[in-house]
């Protein structure tokens, strides 16, 4: 048999699955760090296979870069489900999109595994952590490789499960467990949409396979605008598209289903980086890109995706402006960036969306891992108000994070610059309301640059606002204290108060009182330390990728777009317009990024005496910004509303139903039984217990019977 690299594809998910099984059954025996290194090995092995398969794919002719290969060892074709003509085979779709995602998932996933070996080194559940991580990689690969949409759904729900398991990894804190539940349940809402979309696809096209060699896959059909029953009408395309988008919005944290993602930061930081920044949350974009031939058939769907996307982008950015928890800033930033990706999908720029998925995976994983390194160094302190001045204490972390900062802000020529501006360029060319989309998106870019600068300033550049001697104390369960500050307006005061009392004697210690920090800047016996090599190595690799990764897709030589071409809907299906001239777009993008950074620098510059002493709250108090600040800090009330709706209203409804069940539905049943009881209570009085009265009744009965028998005879006479 001729060697055909895509036939190796079954190994890609199989290796992490093997790793999962080994970890699950023998992880404890392997102990740490061996179990962690072994888990890392499987992911990198999978990466190696992915590279092999990719090389095989590149060897194929451009148009035919697509293969449907068995996903079981030895190429066996065993159907998962086969009922009538509903057949789902274990098959992988090997094409540029799936291979791109395989590389991201296994590549970045491997780095994060390595990072976690260092980050989790002290954790008593070390093997369990890697068991879950390997399982996650397996499901994520199923998601991106699945040859039909139901296999994708396996991965889809599977990563949701792993996300749940990893968010609530430190389950002894009930808040983590609640955050995990929230993530799973909100994701499930989206999953229902996805599942209904899958059903609609089968009902419409009679198959769930994406592409088939005989051209009968549902995307093959959609490209020709036909279904199993006739033409693919706008109504059908709209229904399917919207249902699938509900699924994508759940998984990729789009408004209003984003509420789970900030809470998901309760998980260990490597999890936040891997699942809640680089891979899983982008699954929605991958899925929409995968089914793009259907999406582009309906302008309703495209409009919806574009509007929700751009709204999520700006909405989340406004929240990110004011958060004090370093991971929460990054979480809202992730939501915002995901909004950009959906904006891209909505305007038909699927390749640009995937490009942003890729670059975002680089720089957001970098930022999260950097944040994890900071948290590690700070002995699990996440509040940026209690940081500052870390620039020289953790230099590698600082430098790599700075690359990520500039990349996400969109500074030339780093990765974010290219991908973000490509999206905005396409948005400006969207036929219906492109310029509005562009304007909102561009303004979001300004906000992005600002809040990332704020994060960097508060963490690294402003003066130190903590007492190193206190680090590591007051945290009863050190080693797993990533849990979130549940920030709301009044929490802020609590934080200040507790901090003040903790550091009594340090004037102006609350918030950003930077003068006081001078008192303890002597570093001789510092509690702050740079992270081990397992953590810094991935940071460096990701920093390099964030710096140069964007060069894959420059507007002049867009290798990336050409590579993805076989996987996305051809532009001919939706006819994009000319948008802003290229250089104008790039120029405005760069200008906004620089402006945002300068704005941030000026607000948080320690040399600017007047503002420096103030917290964000004090700074905005009394100005029109004050209420905006509080609104943003309070997450614009969305979380509170969601909690009210889900917990209070839902709980009351459930309790009412339970009451009805007990008292009305079952009450009726018991009522019937009760009625029988009451009637027998009445009739039992007849039983007096006197034998002779029974005899009298009997005589009476006999007389009646005899009389009734005689009556007809007598009455005849």
């Amino acid at each position: 048999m001729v060697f055909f690299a895509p036939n190796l594809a079954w190994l890609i998910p199989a290796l992490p699955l093997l790793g999962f099984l080994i970890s699950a059954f023998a992880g404890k025996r392997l102990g740490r760090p061996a179990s962690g290194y072994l888990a890392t090995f499987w992911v990198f092995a999978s990466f190696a296979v992915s590279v092999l398969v990719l090389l095989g794919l590149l060897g194929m002719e451009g148009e035919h870069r697509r293969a449907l290969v068995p996903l079981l060892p030895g190429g066996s074709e065993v159907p998962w489900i086969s009922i009538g003509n509903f057949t789902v085979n274990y098959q992988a779709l090997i094409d540029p999109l799936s291979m791109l995602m395989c590389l991201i998932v296994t590549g970045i996933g491997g780095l994060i595994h390595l990072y976690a070996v260092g980050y989790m080194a002290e954790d008593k559940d070390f093997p369990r952590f890697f068991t879950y991580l390997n399982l996650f990689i397996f499901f994520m690969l199923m998601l991106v490789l699945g040859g039909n949409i139901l296999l994708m759904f396996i991965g889809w729900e599977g990563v949701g499960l792993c996300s749940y398991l990893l968010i609530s990894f430190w389950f002894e804190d009930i808040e983590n467990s609640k955050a995990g539940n929230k993530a799973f349940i909100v994701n499930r809402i989206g999953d229902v949409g996805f599942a209904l979309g899958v059903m609609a696809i089968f009902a419409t096209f009679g198959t769930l396979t994406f592409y088939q060699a005989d051209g009968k896959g549902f995307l093959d059909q959609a490209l020709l605008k036909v279904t199993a029953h006739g033409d693919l009408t706008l109504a059908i395309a709209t229904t399917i598209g919207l249902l699938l988008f509900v699924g994508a919005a759940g998984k990729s944290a789009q408004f209003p289903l984003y509420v789970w993602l900030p809470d998901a930061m309760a998980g260990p930081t490597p999890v936040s980086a891997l699942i809640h920044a680089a891979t899983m949350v982008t699954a929605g974009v991958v899925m929409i890109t995968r089914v793009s031939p259907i999406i582009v058939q309906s302008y309703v769907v495209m409009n919806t995706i574009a509007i929700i996307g751009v709204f999520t982008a700006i909405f989340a950015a406004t929240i990110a402006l004011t958060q004090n928890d370093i991971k929460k800033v990054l979480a809202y930033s992730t939501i915002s960036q995901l909004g950009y990706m959906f904006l891209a999908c909505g305007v038909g720029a699927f390749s640009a969306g995937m490009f942003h998925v890729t670059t975002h995976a680089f720089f957001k994983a970098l930022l999260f891992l950097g944040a994890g390194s900071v948290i590690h160094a700070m002995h699990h302190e996440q509040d940026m108000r209690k940081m500052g001045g870390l620039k020289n204490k953790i230099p590698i972390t600082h430098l790599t994070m700075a690359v990520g900062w500039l990349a996400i802000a969109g500074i030339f020529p780093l990765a974010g610059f290219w991908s973000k501006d490509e999206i905005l360029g396409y948005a400006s060319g969207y036929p219906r309301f492109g310029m509005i989309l562009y304007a909102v998106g561009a303004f979001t870019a300004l906000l992005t640059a600002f809040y990332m600068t704020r994060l960097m300033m508060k963490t690294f550049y402003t003066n130190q606002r903590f007492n190193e001697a206190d680090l590591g104390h007051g945290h009863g369960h050190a080693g797993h204290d990533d849990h979130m500050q549940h920030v709301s307006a009044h929490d802020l005061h609590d934080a200040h108060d507790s901090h003040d009392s903790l550091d009594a004697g340090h004037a102006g210690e609350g918030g950003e009182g930077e003068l006081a920090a001078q008192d303890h800047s002597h570093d001789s016996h510092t509690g702050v330390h740079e992270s081990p090599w397992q953590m810094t190595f991935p940071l460096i690799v990701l920093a390099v990728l964030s710096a140069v990764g964007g060069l894959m897709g420059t507007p002049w030589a867009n290798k990336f777009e050409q590579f993805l071409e076989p996987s996305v809907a051809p532009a001919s299906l939706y006819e994009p317009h000319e948008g802003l001239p290229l250089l104008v777009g790039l120029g405005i993008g760069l200008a906004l990024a620089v402006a945002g950074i300068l704005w941030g620098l000026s607000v948080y510059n320690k040399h600017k005496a007047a503002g420096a002493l103030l917290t964000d709250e004090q700074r905005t108090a009394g100005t029109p910004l004050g209420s905006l600040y509080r609104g943003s800090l309070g997450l614009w009330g969305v979380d509170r509303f969601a909690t009210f709706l889900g917990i209070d209203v839902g709980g009351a409804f459930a309790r009412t139903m339970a009451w009805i069940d007990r008292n009305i539905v079952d009450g009726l049943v018991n009522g019937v039984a009760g009625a029988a009881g009451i009637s027998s209570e009445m009739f039992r009085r007849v039983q007096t217990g006197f034998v002779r009265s029974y005899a009298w009744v009997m005589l009476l009965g006999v007389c009646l019977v005899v009389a009734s028998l005689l009556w007809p005879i007598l009455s005849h006479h």
Partner: protein
Amino acid sequence: MPVSSPHILTLVTFLPLAGALLLLLFKRPVDEEDAHAHGNVHIEGANEGVEEHRVPVNAAANAIRYFALGVSLVTFALSVLLLTGFKAGQPGFQFEVGPYAWISSYHVNFHLGIDGISLLLILLTTFLSVLSVLFSFNIKRRVKEYMIFLLVLQTAMTGVFCALDLVLFYVFWEAVLIPMYFLIGIWGHENRIYAAIKFFLYTFAGSVLMLVGIVFIYNATGSFSLVDLLNPAGAGGRLAAQDARTLSLLFGSFSLAFMIKVPMFPFHTWLPDAHVEAPTAGSVILAGIMLKMGTYGFLRFCLPLFPNQAMQYSWIFITLAIIGIIYGAVVAAVQPDMKKLVAYSSVSHLGFVMLGIFSFTQLGLTGAVLQSINHGVSTGMLFFLVGMLYERRHTREIAAFGGLKRAVPILSTFFLIALLSSVALPLTNGFVGEFTILQGSFMSPFAGFGPTALASSGMVLSAIYMLWMFQRVFTGPVDKPENRRMLDLSLREKAVLVPLVVLVFWFGCYATAWTRFLTLPVLALTNGTNNNTSNAGKVAGIEKAGHSGIRLSARP
């Protein structure tokens, strides 16, 4: 004996009964609870966990236990022979026993036989019975009677799934109630008498109406034989010739009995009481097998005998099924008692089964049978696990637990698997059943997009109540000292759970292995209904949509 000999079926059905009769000859063991009540070995409070350690060796009781286990194991092995001898490609009933005249003056015959649906349900019965006997080794009081009732119950349930004569079916159907009544009433918990009586009377009230229906059918057609009644040239033709009102009443009398057994909203209230009060094995059998008798009844009698009525009234069943899915899940969420929570989740899951049945599509019906089996596996597993927790703490209150994941990691892993199967995560059995049901209902002319969307909200709700329970029981700090020294699973308990886990993933990853047995019986059902679609179409105002098994109707 050749594998295809029909007498395997007789053996599978009656071997447990024979075992029960032999058990009568065993010496009655001393109650072990009494033994330590007299101060033999028991040390109060210490060793709350696995009970075997403090139990005096009771040879008589152990002889009974191992004998019962042996009987159920042999029965299970024989039922596997059924599986290997079964020809999936052959239509009609296989392994037919009889008909032998039983009450010849009324043409009542002893007549057994199975098709693919019966086969899977019988396998489920024999399988869960083995595990139930094994789990019931912890029964200390009146072991002999307990095992006898368990084995008699097994015979009655198997008989229900393979009887081909209406009277024989009815006898088995009612016979199931008797041992279960005693299992709940004697070995149950605090409120057991109330629950046992409620369970008995409620389900009995429904099935008496079915008896009236059976007698009426005999009067009208002169036959009790299901095979004859399915034959359009025989009694089936005479039955179909009855006027529509009569047929509707007959359909109603059968349906009511089955609806109560399933149970469908609003006839479900016996279920939580019976589940909560029954001993663990009783709950497992109740949820795992007895509820399936109801769905089986629909598949075996209501749909084939009254196809037009079934379609005409399908809207009622679909409505009640969807209400049941949502209602069961919502009520489950706020139950303070774990068993009650699982019981209400059964109401929700069985709603899916009913939705699949009344979608009249191949996918829906196949999914319904799969979901019946799956529910037996996953809910059975959940009940076993709750029973294990009960043994350790003597409470089922969710609030009494917390943080168990640290104390009993293996138990909590098994619990998580059962939970995931119950919330229908892909690659577990629950997903295959639920998805095919929803897909079938989506494409059914009787349901369509709206009802399917409503039903699929059950996917979210099941995640809510299950995860919330998991959160409260297994996560958080271990704040109750009695939970801290809880013992993890014993070998016997693992032996109960591991086969269930295997099935969870076997069904979940390779459903085709099982669905091939269902193709022909389900096609027979859809063909039965399709042939009458033109009729029912007029009645229900629905156009005929092709005559293949699956209706491809684009319903955007």
